[in-house]
């Protein structure tokens, strides 16, 4: 009896050792391999759970916006019918002339699924995959600006690297086009960790605080003109040949739930006009909201393309 118990305990210990070794092996796998294994698990066993999570995050968003919606409704009720019609007409025209028309390449609206409490905070799962036309290195944007880039795709989901990731880089320029550099995360302790650094600005160029920084389009990964942030101050780095600036980001990834994945550019590589005016930024916001509504429609539909309206 005692011998059986001992051998059982030994077998348990061996199983634990096997599990630990397997887990450790997985943690040291090359990133692409890890990505593909995780993607395969995500697309098979975890797929229904991801869909559930997406629905509940949408429910939470709806709940949070409930008061806001009610307030908006109250204001609208106070207006007369003619004014309401005009506002609706204006909204329709804005939508028609907005982001969908300005962005020549197609885009896919999607939800960003976060893991709120702890652990890896530099990636999110995006609920659009290669079935929707998403490819690796597609830019992920929000109405306010750049969120990150796609680093792995599966059939219906993708993994996006947020700008907070230590490896994230984007070629950037000042909004007036006078200075070019490389944007990356500011690797300091919190709360400064949630800022960006604009490096490699030639010493002869200096940027004033408040200057907007946008993607430059160099390198062909990110289209030109996506807002990234605004300059806060110059950092002391000891590099004599270039300047480094601290940049306040336009988008805090934790706040982003609905995103837009830009598909490969076909006609032009400049999105400056999309974010250049309040009207177009508003249209971008509305386009993404419409996209969010369209997510409620059955999956597998075609990506939203310019000129086509998402299903209501």
């Amino acid at each position, binding site marked *: 009896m005692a011998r059986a118990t001992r051998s059982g305990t030994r077998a348990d210990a061996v*199983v*634990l050792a096997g*599990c*630990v070794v397997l887990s450790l092996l997985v943690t040291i*796998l090359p990133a692409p391999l890890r990505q593909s294994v*995780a993607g395969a698990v995500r697309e098979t*066993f975890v797929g229904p759970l991801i869909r559930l999570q997406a629905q509940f995050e949408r429910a939470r968003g709806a709940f949070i916006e409930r008061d806001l919606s009610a307030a908006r409704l109250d204001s609208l009720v106070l207006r007369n019918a003619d004014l309401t019609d005009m506002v609706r007409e204006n909204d329709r025209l804005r939508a028609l002339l907005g982001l969908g028309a300005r962005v020549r390449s197609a885009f896919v609206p999607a939800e960003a699924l976060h893991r709120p*409490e702890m652990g*890896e905070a530099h*990636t999110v799962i995006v609920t659009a995959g290669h079935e929707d036309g998403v490819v690796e290195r597609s830019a992920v944007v929000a109405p306010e600006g750049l969120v990150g880039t796609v680093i792995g795709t599966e059939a219906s989901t993708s993994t996006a690297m947020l700008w907070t990731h230590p490896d994230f880089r984007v070629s950037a320029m000042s909004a007036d086009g006078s200075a070019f550099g490389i944007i990356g995360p500011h690797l300091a302790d919190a709360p400064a960790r949630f800022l960006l650094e604009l490096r490699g600005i030639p010493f002869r160029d200096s940027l004033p605080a408040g200057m907007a920084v946008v993607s430059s389009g160099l390198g062909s990964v990110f289209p030109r003109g996506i807002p990234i942030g605004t300059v806060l101050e110059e950092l002391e780095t000891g590099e004599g040949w270039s300047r480094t600036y601290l940049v306040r980001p336009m988008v805090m990834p934790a706040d982003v739930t609905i995103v837009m994945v830009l598909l490969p550019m076909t006609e032009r590589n400049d999105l400056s006009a999309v974010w250049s005016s309040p009207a177009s930024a508003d249209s971008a916001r509305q386009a993404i909201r419409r996209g969010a509504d369209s997510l409620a429609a059955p999956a597998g539909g075609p990506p939203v393309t310019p000129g086509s309206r998402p299903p209501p």
Partner: protein
Amino acid sequence: MSWLALVRGIGLFLLLVVLHYTVRPLLGMRVTADFLVIAVLVTAVQVRPGVAAVIGLLTGVISDSLTPLSFGAGALALSTVGFSASWLKAAVFGDNVLLQAIFIAAGKWAFDVLYLVAERRLSFAELAVQLAFWSPLSGLATGLAGLVVVALFRRSAERTR
């Protein structure tokens, strides 16, 4: 273990996994109950340590698939926590309600320690804050939620007996 108990155990495990992916996104808070840890702990005390380690490993793989850059860290943490819980069950997991809550809270904290160390992402200061402040709060929330789950599970088990 009877067939009925087995089916009930599997049902509870699946329910907790579903709760993990529905209740938490709904709350969207940094401190929430970790239903995956509860699922592994509640199952672990019913099975042999080796089986508990395998259940923890599989649950961890499911959890890690959403965080591909730290893939494997959750599997390592949950299999170790599952094994330890199963091994310690005779010593800790009795009829005392308070002990059960402490057991689940400690399991969650141990999971956080193993996960964050294996993940190797946080700096020392961030790790210290996480383990000294956020993880105990999460452990507390997980312990309370686990208590409710265990109480409901026991009541339903007694009713069907």
